[in-house]
């Protein structure tokens, strides 16, 4: 079969770029919501901080997995 398209070089970095899209949006939403909540109700800042960090950590995990996978399965 003829090769129509080929990609060489560090494909893992392309994968990481793709993996970072979702978490990037997600982390942005998490902090935006936290700032909005704090602006609307400043006394709730302490209450929601834990959940902000929680949501941040959970969405960030995907990007980090995307970062590590090229090292694990690379070459």
């Amino acid at each position: 079969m003829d090769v129509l398209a080929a990609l060489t070089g560090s494909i893992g970095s392309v994968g990481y770029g793709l993996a970072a899209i979702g978490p990037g949006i997600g982390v942005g939403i998490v902090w935006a919501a936290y700032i909005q909540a704090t602006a609307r109700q400043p006394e709730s800042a302490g209450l929601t901080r834990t959940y902000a960090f929680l949501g941040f950590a959970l969405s960030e995990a995907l990007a980090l997995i995307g970062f590590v996978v090229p090292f694990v399965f690379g070459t």
Partner: protein
Amino acid sequence: MTPSAHALGSVLAAGPGFEAPGLEAFYPHPLWSFTLLGIPFEITRITLILWIATLAMIGLLVATVRKPQIVPGKLQFLGESGYSLVRDGIARDVVGPKGLSFAPFLAALFFFILANNMMSIIPFAQISPMSKFAFPLVLALICYVIYIWIGIREQGVGKYFKDILFLPGVPVFMYVLVTPIEILQNFIVRPFTLAVRLFANMFAGHMLLLVFSLGATYLFTVGGLSYVFGGISFLMAIVMTFFELLVIFLQAYVFTVLMGTYLNGSIEAEH
């Protein structure tokens, strides 16, 4: 010779091309190796860093409480506010009213991770033991065993596993979908992400610093216009060191907070 110096040597020796730093920085040469009960052990630089960081943290914390006064001095204030961050912010507020008995464990977890993470920007160490997957993995496994054990102790074996397998308040036909997700979530994803998050953050931080500092060194050797870019790269290495400082605190905090929420889920029956 440190692995980073080794990488620097290979960058300078490579000649015309820049060789990006790879994984060799995470596999330093063993300083001392021995076999105990048929298991080979290797004491590397990273092991030494772990010991030094832990001892330094123990020393600091002991020093903060050695001469307690009613009006705390600077050192005592540091120790007390660090401990109250974990005790009040995590053990009491996240875990719940029963959580205060977990404050020492959570504080130990927090300060251990903090001390080890801190080694990633301290000169001459500049690699965190947490950027070796084994260390976060063991921490996550300890947490895994503890939160399941606490769940069984607080709720009983039957109720604890029944609540996880069959989430209360869910329509019966939805169990086809919910039960596998809950099993995956509680017994596989949780400890895995706990370990990977800490590991990947410290690993990525170390790689970032390596890339910028080795890049700067390489650009300075090229000469010409590259001096400008070398300067920028060097500046970025400094900026990234401060960013690393943020990540160090954040990851130690996030690890402890997540362990707090898992404990909360184990202690309180409702989801």
